């Protein structure tokens, strides 16, 4: 454990152990309430009318027939939302512009993708609401559309926004285009670097847009009273962010809106933005009744999420002994209908795992007629690092150096200067590479049509504004309240910390996620921040309790501060005082709390800084069926630096979940569009995500290189594990087939075609 202000008080040492999850019973018995499980008396059902066109001007919207339908209580359109000025605010992985947000939740001048919301109704039943949608008459002027990122960048492509001028280029363009931004980072002298290279490899890669694929669809229940006080229940990664966005879009004071986050059936970044929430509030306000809205799976695919599809060029140079001397990349990321793809982090992360003197990365943020992208686990990084890791593998094979050794030779470590500026603190990449090399997996022989791939990955991690409270109850038990929705085990992790800090049994702490009226502003669960930041807030809250108890003991015992200490769950008298009085436990103080000044509690309110990057290395074995092109994952091992695993089982779960999502991204998942610009696979039957039977048990190796800026040494872990799988699987595919796959997904038709082309050539 890192040197810290923690006590581990009673020595029970829950941190680092696999305690029973506090939400487990509710989840296995069906008691847990997810977004669609909330209901209120008299509630109406809200439904959304969505655009059938990928790109069209809205000429008129006539809702009169729908409004006249018996059972319809409210209809809303663009006219129910005031336009917003152009103002960028941080949201998810990118800056978000409220001018775009208001247009994304409800189309104004144009519809920009199939599924774009055009109107919404609230009615007394689902059937009536659906009938009402059919009665809304929208007249469109259909416009040419563009889906692919490269096509969208071409001169003459249909332009989505007449006021979008490429930022980051000189001179400033005088014509609008779909390229929202160009960014560039430089380290050293890229040309000089390539001159030093004995080997230069240049490749172009293409990745498909993929959805976060959370099982639980978006859902919201809103109730707005006559005085404007509003309550909202929804599944979200950040209910304080939902509150802020809704207040802004609806022109309400933040204090008027109380948001409660439900249990969440997956988010992975896709629930960091608002879709239904402002609509439900606007409908409820108009109907003066609660309104419940739940997306269908088709709506989830067509109108929420996905992450970017991209085209990436990579050029790397190395010396013959394996030193990387130059790295160039050009990234073109599709942002969807509004600017704000994760190309910035993609640019920063591309070469982050490596110690390189000369790096140049250029990125383009490009709009097209697809749903606006949302964050997805390590947004942007899997795409750029897939391309770089593929080329690293090719360099290793050309030089005859094994992939782990080559990565070890070039690994970023403490003191390495990142291409995006600062020098790194302690990093665990070398440790993950060593851990992988020591596995039995690494040394197991392979058969024909089988391949083994390795790849590493980097993600920054963040902290941010975070509140958490600890309240000592009358019997000495403790109520823990956190402000970030629990997606990956937060409650168990924070309870481990609270129990250790206060020196009480784990079972005596009951954690909940507080609503927006119960805690101060807390940024969302994202950026691998919730356990990192939340545990810092809990340490602060526990510190306040311990200080308060020591103060009360001094008053009670008529002692000085240096005559008492908090240890092992009790305030203990020191020195001569120990002869006179007995230690008092938290429960002892709780019994007489009123007599000593009132209830006891601590409230951590911090802006957590000091997040440490997490690096990981993945190893995968797979087998290709040459007759069908189907790829089977045979074995998979993840090694990642967690700094300190507060709850190892949950950390391993993050590693495994990220790996499986990466497997889907690499092998099967993609948005497929027809020539008409409409999505053809908006359902889980046609959008092929991995299921349990598709993957082996993912072996997880916990590496712990302490983050010196955290009291327990914690690093965020949730995002890094989705970064390496794409490259690792492509590298394994190369070994299995002799073909370098540069386009994702490596789905059976593509694999079969590549095998046939190879056979034809030979």
């Amino acid at each position, binding site marked *: 454990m890192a040197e810290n202000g923690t006590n581990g008080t009673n020595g029970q040492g829950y941190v680092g152990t696999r305690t029973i999850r506090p939400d487990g019973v509710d989840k296995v018995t069906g008691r847990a309430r997810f977004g669609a499980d909330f209901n209120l008396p008299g509630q109406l059902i809200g439904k959304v009318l969505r655009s059938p066109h990928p790109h069209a001007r809205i000429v008129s919207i006539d809702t009169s027939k729908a409004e006249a339908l018996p059972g319809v209580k409210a209809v809303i359109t663009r006219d129910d939302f005031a336009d917003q000025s152009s103002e*960028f*605010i*941080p*949201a*998810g*992985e*990118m*800056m978000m512009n409220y001018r775009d947000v208001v247009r994304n939740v409800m189309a104004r001048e144009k519809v920009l993708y199939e599924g774009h919301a055009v109107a919404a109704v609230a009615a007394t039943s689902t059937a009536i609401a659906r009938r009402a949608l059919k009665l809304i008459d929208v007249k469109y002027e259909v416009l040419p559309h563009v889906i692919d990122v490269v096509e969208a960048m071409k001169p003459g492509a249909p332009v989505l926004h007449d006021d979008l001028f490429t*930022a*980051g280029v*000189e001179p400033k363009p005088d014509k609008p285009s779909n390229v929202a*931004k*160009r*960014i*560039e*980072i430089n380290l050293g002298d890229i040309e000089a670097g390539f001159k030093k290279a004995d080997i230069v490899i240049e490749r172009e890669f293409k990745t498909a847009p993929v959805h*976060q694929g959370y099982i639980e669809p978006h859902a919201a229940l809103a109730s707005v009273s006559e005085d404007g006080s509003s309550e909202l229940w929804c599944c979200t990664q950040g209910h304080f962010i939902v509150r802020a966005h809704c207040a802004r879009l609806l022109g309400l004071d933040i204090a008027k809106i109380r948001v409660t986050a439900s249990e969440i059936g997956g988010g*992975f*970044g*896709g629930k*960091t933005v608002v879709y239904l929430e402002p609509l439900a509030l606007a409908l409820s306000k108009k109907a003066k009744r609660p309104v419940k809205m739940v997306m269908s799976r088709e709506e989830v695919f067509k109108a929420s999420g996905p992450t970017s599809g991209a085209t990436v060029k990579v050029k790397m140079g190395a010396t013959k002994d394996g030193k990387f001397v130059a790295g160039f990349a050009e990234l073109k990321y599709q942002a969807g209908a509004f600017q704000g793809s994760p190309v*910035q*982090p993609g640019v*920063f992360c591309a070469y982050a795992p490596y110690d390189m003197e000369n790096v140049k990365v250029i990125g383009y943020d490009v709009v097209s007629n697809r749903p606006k992208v*949302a*964050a*997805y*686990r*390590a*947004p942007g990084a899997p795409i750029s690092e897939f391309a770089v890791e593929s080329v690293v593998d090719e360099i290793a094979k050309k030089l005859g150096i094994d992939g782990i050794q080559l990565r070890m030779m070039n690994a970023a470590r403490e003191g390495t200067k990142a291409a*995006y*500026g*600062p*020098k*790194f*603190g302690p990093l665990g990449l070398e440790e993950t590479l060593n851990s992988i090399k020591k596995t039995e997996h690494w040394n197991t022989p392979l058969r024909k049509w089988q391949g083994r791939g390795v790849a590493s990955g980097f*993600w*920054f*991690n*963040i*902290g*941010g*504004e975070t509140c958490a409270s600890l309240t000592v109850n009358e019997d000495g038990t403790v109520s823990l309240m956190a402000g970030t929705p629990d997606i990956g085990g937060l409650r168990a992790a924070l309870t481990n910390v609270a129990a250790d800090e206060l020196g009480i049994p784990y079972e005596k702490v009951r954690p909940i996620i507080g609503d927006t009226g119960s805690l101060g502003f807390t940024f969302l669960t*994202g*950026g*691998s*921040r919730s356990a990192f930041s939340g545990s810092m807030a809990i340490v602060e809250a526990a510190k306040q309790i311990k200080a308060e108890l020591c103060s009360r003991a001094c008053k009670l015992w008529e002692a000085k501060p240096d005559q008492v200490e908090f240890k092992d769950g009790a305030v203990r008298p020191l020195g001569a005082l120990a002869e006179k009085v007995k230690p008092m436990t938290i429960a002892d103080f709780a019994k007489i709390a009123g007599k000593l000044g009132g209830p006891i509690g601590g409230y951590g309110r911090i*802006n957590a*800084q*000091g*997040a440490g990057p997490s690096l990981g290395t993945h190893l995968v074995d797979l087998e290709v069926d040459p007759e069908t092109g189907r790829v089977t994952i045979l074995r998979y091992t993840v090694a990642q630096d967690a700094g300190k695993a507060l709850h190892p089982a949950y950390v391993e779960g993050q590693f495994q979940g990220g790996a499986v999502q990466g497997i889907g991204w690499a092998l099967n998942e993609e948005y497929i569009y027809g020539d008409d610009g409409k999505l053809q696979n908006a359902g889980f039957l046609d959008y092929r995500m991995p299921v349990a039977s598709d993957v082996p048990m993912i072996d997880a190796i916990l590496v712990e290189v302490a983050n010196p*800026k955290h009291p327990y040494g914690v690093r*965020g872990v949730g*995002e890094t594990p989705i970064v390496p799988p794409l490259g690792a699987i492509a590298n394994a595919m190369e070994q299995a087939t002799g073909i370098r796959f540069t386009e994702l997904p490596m789905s059976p038709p593509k694999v079969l075609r590549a095998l046939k082309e190879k056979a034809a050539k030979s």
Partner: protein
Amino acid sequence: MARVVLIGNLAQLTGGVAEFNVSAASVKQLFDRLTELHPELGPHLQEGVAVAIDGQIYQETLLEPIGPDSEVFILPQIAGG
């Protein structure tokens, strides 16, 4: 004086100058000084940037101290999913 480097597109607002030597004891003072030198930078610094001070990235903070010999990078804000 701290050595300050602008990363990414921010240098386009300073006529291409990406490196400065600035006397500032905190992030707030640094932003004030840079805004005095290049007023166009001001809104971007206020809008939300990350500041790496001697290798450690800080976000949404004005009060973090900067040492006289610190190396400071100003980069776009970092978040995640």
